[in-house]
């Protein structure tokens, strides 16, 4: 293995933080979903790296699950965003506060 495990984890952590930053700061529902996707992929990278490091296939299996979940999440999330846009006419998350 050419790339050391620490570098992989570093990359995954940085990606995760970028995702968090995106999710928390962007005032657009689509960008929030995007941030969540980035975080999921960061986790997937960490799993792949770990599978390689410990020579175990469970990590790879997890990544398949994560990809499936990411796909469903995106589809459901986009549907919700379309609905929210129809209701309020904007992508601003602060306009979705009916439960307040």
């Amino acid at each position, binding site marked *: 293995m050419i790339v050391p495990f620490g570098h992989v984890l570093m990359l995954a952590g940085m990606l995760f933080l970028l995702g*968090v930053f995106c*999710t*928390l*700061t962007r005032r657009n529902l689509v960008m*929030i979903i995007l941030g969540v996707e980035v975080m999921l992929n960061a986790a997937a990278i960490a799993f792949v790296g770990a599978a390689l490091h410990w020579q175990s296939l469970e990590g790879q299996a997890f990544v398949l699950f994560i990809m499936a979940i990411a796909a469903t999440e995106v589809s459901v999330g986009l549907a919700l965003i379309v609905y929210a846009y129809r209701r309020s006419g904007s992508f601003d*998350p*602060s306009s*979705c*506060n*009916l*439960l*307040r």
Partner: protein
Amino acid sequence: MIPFRAEDAIHMTVILATLTPLFAFLLIMLGTRARKNLSAGLSLGAIAISFGCSLLLLARLWNVREPLEYSTRWVALNRMEIPFGFLLDPVSLLMLSIVTLICLLVQVYSLGYMAGDPGFSRYYAFMSLFAWAMTSLVLSSSLLQLFIFWELVGLSSYLLIGFWYEKFSATQAGKKAFVMTRAGDVSFLLGLILVLVHVGNPAILEMNSLDSAGLMPSGILTFAALLIFGGIVGKSAQFPLMTWLPDAMEGPTPVSALLHSATMVAAGVYLFARLFPFFALSPTAMGIFLFIGTVSMILASTMAMVARDIKQVWAYSTISQLGFMIMGLAAGGYFAGVFHLTTHAGFKALLFLCSGVFIHTWHTNDIFELGKGGARRLKIPVIALVVAAGALAGLPPFSGFFSKEAILAALALSSHPVWLAAGLLGVFLTAYYAFRVLCILLFPPSAGEEPSGPVGGLAPAPKASRQEGSSRTFIWPLIILVFLTLLLGFFQGPLQHFLLGEGKALLVDHGEQAGWLPFTALFLSLAGVGLAWVEFGRCGAARLGFVERIPFLRELFSQRWYLDHFYHFFVDRIVDRGFSKLFAQNDNRVIDGSIEAVSRGTLEAGRFLAFLQSGMIQYRLLVSFAVMVLLSLYFFYRDSGGF
């Protein structure tokens, strides 16, 4: 202590004597209220059985010297033991006979007096309850048991005083009697607890034995005696708590007769006699009792000198005679006090029952009205009234003379001559007010119109006929009581023997007492009678007492020395506006305030929390991320053994 044995005849008699009135009460209340005659019959039968049993007991135990105690253990705590049972000794037997006799006579009398009253059955039920409570009180073997029946006596007298509950004044009087006696009873209960804590056994014989002096320090003994005496003060209407008794007149007259002679107020003096050896252990307490008895006697006599209501005069005289008994007992004259209690029960019942006849006939309580109405024409009640007033005044052939002599003799032996002087003054005042009433009743001023026709619409004809119809139930109790009053005095010797026995432990030796005393007392009471005659009786008398000529004294006496005003003031200012206001403010400010603060705090907290809930999804995400980061840091460092 003799264990319970069912075959014991005396024991069965005792149970029969006390419990039959209770059964009568229950039966009347539960079943026969609608049937008046049956109710009255039940009650009368019960009290007659009770009376018969008590006579039987008296005859059977006349020569028994040792007190008999039938008791069983009721409560046993680690060091305390509370027995429950009967105590038969001369005082209780004598008292039992008096109580049942007076109850019987009063109930017979009530047949006529209460006839036609809508609450006739209820009246007899309460009478039975009263009889049960009083007989059980008399025979109680322990102080705690006595206290229970003591309260029952208070309850039943409340029910009877407020019997005509549609009348506002009657309910007020009932309440007043109940509350004022309760004030004394609280003190009684405290004293009882004190004794219980120290002696550990409230049996009367136990308390009266000399051991209790060893078990209690003398200061505590005096304190306990004073506390228990507080109960006597309330029940027997002595000095600070005396004003309920005159108001108790609102009940039916037979009730007053019962209340004043043998039951309610007599219970107080009876308790004194019952615990006499216990009280005698504390000379300080006895001195205070003597003082209170004297004050009550003098105050009440002065009140009686100006009262116009016939029942009120007798009520005041009851207070003063009870004070007299307490004086006698406190001076060490055990027999004198009990003897006066006995004779007083007879003649005071007689006085009230006679007054009841007058009141029933003329429907007024005012002595001047009664005199004008022609009270003197009712021969037998008038004769009975003269006999009773003579006994009250202490004139020789009647019973009151003998018992008063005994008390005066006891007082003469007491420490200070001032008590004897007060006693003699009391004798004079008593004779004066008794015969004042008599003179006003018997010698109305009517110079011209003797036949009393034109007295404001009180047409005597229909009432006389009604009185005629029920006269037998009126007259027979009177006649029996007259004989009792006439004869009881001559039984002083046997009674003394019965009460004190051979061992004259408590006997005050009357024998070599100064010979001048009876003559002085007789002279003083005759002087009282004479003064009453001069002022009210003789032709052309001013009909104005010597006290009534002095406006200040008249006001003072007729306002009952302003005692009621004092109580009003006390209740109004100190209780209502002082304590109650304080408590009301406590309620408003502290309790309500704190609850309001709690609710307001909840409201504010809710508002604050609602402010946090902004409905913004990203803030929630931020919070959950922060929590996750902190948790992971925590677990990481905890597991790596850091910090």
